[in-house]
């Protein structure tokens, strides 16, 4: 039984075709991340799965049951929003239990679930506080707790870390990964941040202009992209693209470029980023500006003449339309 299956999902707002023939299955316990640039339809797809938007056509199944026409509350899902969306007039307990109360659960069940969730998220000390009295990270944990107590078939996360600062984002990312292991639940996570996608996902779904470009594990997508878009979207710094003699494009990851006397790409260093562990060079060559990622610390500075080389085995070839040539 699959946790989620989407068949030929289409969605239009008036004349604008936002989702085009989306087919996807999510296995039980899988962590799937939707990633793509803004406007690619990833949030709309998530909201369609949640039932907050109606699909124009297609079939949605959650836990084997068709839910295409089912209201959100009855789909067996729970959602965590980017803006947390906590009820401002309710305390933490009230926020977490509202859904259960609406579903008519007994007090014993509610108390037990909230105890478990509060412990899991270290929220025990804050149960009587209002959202206004909590920090950003605590609010996010309450929002996650509100999802956990519902014991859904499927968790939906809509860019949950976007409002947190960098340090907290890292910590919460680890927290979400831990929750996924502990709960063993199926999760769908939307983000535009490829680091979040790479670090959290069992499988990544890359979307562009309402279409699925490629689905696969993070390393499959990184090592074996189907097209130029996926190749350029995943990886930081992103892949270098050079025109090839055949009229298509060559792609080389920054870590696969090296400084070598036997290289074929002479150029001038225009910018240096020293990160301690890595050194990134921007090098202006006849083929355009290329990013080079060197491990460790290197002495190159702006204005230096360097020659870049690469291993032909690490070059990706794309045709004129951006399709991968294998």
């Amino acid at each position, binding site marked *: 039984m699959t946790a989620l299956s989407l068949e030929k999902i289409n969605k239009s707002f008036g004349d604008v075709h936002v989702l085009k023939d989306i087919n996807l299955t999510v296995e039980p316990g899988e962590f799937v991340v939707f990633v793509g640039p803004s406007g690619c339809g990833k949030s709309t797809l998530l*909201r369609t799965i*949640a*039932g*907050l938007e109606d699909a124009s056509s297609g079939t949605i199944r959650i836990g084997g049951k068709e839910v295409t026409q089912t*209201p*959100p*509350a*009855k789909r067996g*899902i*729970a*959602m965590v*929003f*980017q*803006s*947390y*969306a*906590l*009820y*401002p*007039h309710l305390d933490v307990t009230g926020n977490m239990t*509202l*859904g259960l109360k*609406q*579903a008519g659960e007994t007090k014993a069940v509610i108390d037990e679930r909230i105890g478990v969730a509060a412990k899991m998220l270290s929220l025990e000390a804050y149960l009587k506080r*209002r*959202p*206004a*009295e*909590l920090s*950003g990270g605590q609010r996010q944990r309450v929002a996650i707790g*509100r999802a956990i107590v519902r014991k859904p078939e499927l968790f939906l996360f*809509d860019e949950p870390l976007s*409002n947190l600062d960098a340090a907290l984002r890292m910590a919460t990312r680890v927290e979400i990964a831990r929750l996924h292991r502990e709960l063993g639940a199926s999760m769908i996570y939307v983000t535009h941040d490829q680091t979040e996608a790479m670090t959290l996902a069992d499988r990544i779904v890359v979307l562009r202009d309402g279409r699925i470009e490629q689905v696969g594990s993070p390393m499959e997508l990184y090592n074996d992209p189907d097209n130029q878009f996926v190749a350029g979207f995943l990886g930081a710094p992103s892949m270098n693209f050079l025109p090839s003699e055949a009229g298509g494009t060559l792609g080389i990851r920054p870590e696969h470029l090296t400084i070598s006397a036997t290289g074929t790409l002479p150029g001038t260093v225009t910018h240096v980023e020293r990160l301690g562990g890595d050194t990134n060079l921007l090098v202006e060559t006849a083929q355009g500006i290329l990013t080079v990622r060197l491990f460790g610390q290197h002495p190159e500075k702006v204005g230096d003449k360097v020659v870049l080389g690469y291993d032909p085995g690490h070059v990706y070839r794309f045709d004129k339309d951006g399709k991968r040539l294998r």
Partner: protein
Amino acid sequence: MHKARHSPLNSIAAHGALILWTVIALFPVVVILINSFKTRQAIFREPLALPTGESFSMIGYQTVMKQGDFFLYFQNSMIVTVVSLFLILLFGAMAAFALSEYRFKGNTLMGLYLALGIMIPIRIGTVAILQMMVATGLVNTLTALILVYTAQGLPLAVFILSEFMRQVSDDLKNAGRIDGMSEYAIFFKLVLPLVRPAMATVAVFNMIPIWNDLWFPLILAPSEATKTLTLGSQVFIGQFVTDWNAVLSALSLAILPVLVLYVIFSRQLIRGITSGAVK
């Protein structure tokens, strides 16, 4: 808090302007209040003087209490104002929610149609309204006044409230939907508390004109049993003789309930639990 950035001169100027404005705004009210406690001669001799032992008189209030059924007028005004406000807020908020929340054909057109009422004074339709009230047998009832005032208040209410409701986070409403709240529950439990300051603003805007209105009570409900306070006070203003003591006393008394309502609403304006709802 921001002392470093504000020079005391600025502060003095700002307070000066505010005090001046307060004095101008309160002047007529104060004149009414002090003169309502003076004898008739004293009112005309020195209108701006405070009542002294010699000029002090409660004659105006005594006349008001004796003449006519003043408490009934009071009650009528109160019923009409409170019920109208309740209906304006309820229906205005509901229409605003529908306009701001749901995509449907003719949404913009409907919004414009509802806003049109702001630009067209309802009094233009007085004759037609009177004919309608005669036809439905509502002349000389408080219902007639309540209906008219509700219609008069709705356009602005819908306009203001729909602007505010657009600002309520979609995520919050969606979170409610996922938690299984009905659209009514989302409206009453999530959205209304968040736009409470806007509701108070609308209430204050509508309250004063309704309370003070003379036109519609005079035309639609002039009977003794349905007279409002403003209409009731008119008995003291004659074509040849006006009982100024009584008029001023009646006006002074009429201020009180509005003041109480205003205090209630302005507390709502200030109190906001909205902070921290999102982000």
